[in-house]
């Protein structure tokens, strides 16, 4: 009988005879499908038979071969595995046989096989070989103090890298602006279009809803004092100085910073960055500077646009509260001046620099493989948001001190 015939389709069955000699008989196909549900019951039954074998001395039937190579012939404890009725055995079947062998060896019982074929032996060989394999790297337990120390050091290193990176890239951008012919303006405008123009729909939606929500929530409270008109002051100052730059920066981080990290990260994985370097092209000038310039240009423009849409949304809400649009915008023009708008746009430009820089940094720090690209992308967004919030706090203090 050809026991490696793949076309056989009988399900696996087993029979156990306590003996003497104790015997385990397999019938049918020893494949993953058949082995799955029988794994635990077969091992449990084999345990019982091994216990029975420990009290029985049996003669090996003719044709039986000792499986445990190198061992002396069975003294008194023998378990017979009969594979004569096995129609097919693959790696899963061999896994079960190997487990039975381990079980028997562990209890000092000799396993004898009947009906062993070259095919089954071929499948069993790697299991036997794997027993003696020494892992190339054994996992070592690291004490928590050491892990804590490494963690703190990693955070310190990370802060150092980010600060150094932003400084380095700010210099690269300043140098590029000093020598505009060095800048790849085509790439810069292409990136700016993707980061700016193509973001207008989502910016419109967010800015409009921001204005609406801000106006509506504050108007409810203000109405109790008959001061609805001051909603225009509140909304305009909040939007121009704080909320529009902040929201646009976060949007830029999620949309554009992530894209920068993924693009450069994939290029790193595909060794395109190495190719640039070996061709004598500076990856920073070639890839990073256009993206950072685009970020710096686009963020204030998006913020300006968000200001307009947000104020329009607020005006619409205030109309519902009986304040005409003309009155609303007159109030706005009295409440804010160019310094409010300017500080907001300046902050947006800095946020744009931070978002695009950290997106490029994370891309260039990408390791190997698809997962590394995912990590880089996530890290780009998280780092950008942290930097934005920290920078915003610093700006608040700075503008207060400067009296702007």
């Amino acid at each position, binding site marked *: 009988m*050809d026991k*490696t*015939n*793949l*076309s056989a389709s009988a399900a696996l069955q087993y029979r156990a005879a306590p003996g003497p000699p104790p015997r385990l008989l397999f019938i049918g196909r020893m*494949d*993953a*499908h058949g*082995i*799955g*549900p029988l*794994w*635990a019951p077969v091992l449990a039954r084999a345990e019982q038979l091994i216990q029975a074998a420990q009290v029985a001395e049996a003669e090996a039937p003719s044709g039986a071969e000792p499986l445990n190579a190198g061992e002396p012939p069975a003294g008194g404890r023998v378990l017979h595995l009969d594979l004569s009725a096995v129609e097919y055995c*693959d*790696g*899963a079947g*061999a*896994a*079960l046989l*190997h*487990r039975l062998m381990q079980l028997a060896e562990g209890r000092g019982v000799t396993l004898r096989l009947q009906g062993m074929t*070259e*095919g089954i*032996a*071929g*499948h069993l*060989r*790697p*299991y036997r*070989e*794997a027993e003696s*394999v*020494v*892992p*190339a*790297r054994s*996992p070592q337990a690291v004490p928590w103090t050491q892990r804590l120390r490494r963690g703190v050091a990693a955070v310190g290193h990370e802060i150092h890298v980010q600060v150094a990176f932003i400084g380095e890239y700010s210099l690269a951008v300043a140098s590029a602006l000093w020598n505009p012919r060095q800048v790849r303006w085509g790439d810069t405008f292409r990136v700016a279009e993707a980061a700016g123009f193509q973001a207008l729909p989502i910016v419109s939606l967010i800015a409009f809803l921001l204005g609406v929500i801000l106006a509506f929530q504050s108007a409810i409270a203000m109405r109790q004092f008959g001061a609805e008109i001051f909603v225009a002051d509140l909304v305009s100052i909040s939007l121009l100085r704080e909320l529009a730059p902040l929201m646009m920066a976060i949007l830029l981080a999620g949309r554009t910073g992530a894209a920068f990290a993924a693009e450069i990260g994939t290029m790193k994985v595909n060794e395109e960055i190495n190719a640039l370097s070996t061709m004598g092209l500076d990856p920073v000038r070639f890839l990073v500077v256009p993206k950072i310039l685009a970020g710096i240009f686009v963020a204030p423009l998006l913020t300006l646009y968000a200001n307009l849409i947000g104020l329009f949304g607020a005006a619409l809400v205030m109309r519902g509260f009986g304040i005409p649009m003309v009155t609303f915008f007159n109030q706005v023009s009295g409440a804010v001046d160019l310094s409010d708008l300017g500080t907001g746009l300046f902050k947006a430009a800095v946020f744009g620099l931070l978002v695009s820089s950290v997106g490029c940094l994370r891309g260039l720090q990408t*390791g*190997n*493989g*698809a*997962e*590394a690209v995912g990590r880089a992308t996530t890290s780009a967004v998280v780092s950008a948001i942290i930097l934005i919030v920290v920078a915003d706090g610093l700006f608040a203090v700075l503008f207060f001190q400067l009296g702007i």
Partner: protein
Amino acid sequence: MNAAEQKPSPDGTRRPEAVQNGIGPNSSRPNRSGPIIRVQGLTMGFGSMVIMEDLNFTVQSGEIFVILGGSGSGKSTLLKHMIGLYPPMAGQILIEDIDMSRAEGTERETLLKRVGVSYQMGALFGSMTLLENVRLPLEVHTMLPLAAMNAIARAKLQLVGLGAFSDFMPAEISGGMQKRAAIARAMALDPAVLFLDEPSAGLDPITSAELDQLIQRLAASLGMTLVIVTHELESIFAIADRVIMLDKETRSIVAEGDPRQLRDTADHPWVRRFLRRGVIEDQSA
């Protein structure tokens, strides 16, 4: 590679020697039971661009079948059609009499368990260790307990000489090791047919030879059918039972048969030249 790979196959034959003796490399191999793959009237391409037209060939069960052709001739595309990734423009590909491109539901799932694929770049999942990569098909397609799946995965890794690296991430091992790990993953379910896309491309000669031995062992002792896309002539002559050669000019198969015979006696001069590594025959001889 492990020591076992240096040993003769269990049936006592060394296939390269059999070749030297003029005996077909598979002459001693069991389990030949007719065609396992039938490609009938296959036309393949993308959009309106036709790459190959009306291909007809069979792959016998248990043989090592190699797809050859010049760069851009559509070898890998043919392989991807055979494993059902691309739908044919016309014709059909039957694996164990099931049309791969039209199989759905349980039939498709059953068929997917019967084939294993190793891709050009390995395509290991970077977030998993080698053991987890190899275990994945078992988790998806079987109900084996975790201990059994781990034992099988370790054995497969051992089979390709990576038993000691089961806890490594793909990024931590070399490209050659990644390819071998990918073959181990492709073998996890002991498929009837193993498709290998450029298995030895980019490997050093020793690793490449070890891979050839592994392929021979899979066919000889485990009875697998192997369909391989490769350019490595040395490998082809060492392991292939039969080859087909694709020609992008005529968009058809220009040669089919034993590679050693084709090298010497093929009608098509381009085929002879291809199999002689571009050496132009002396016309005056």
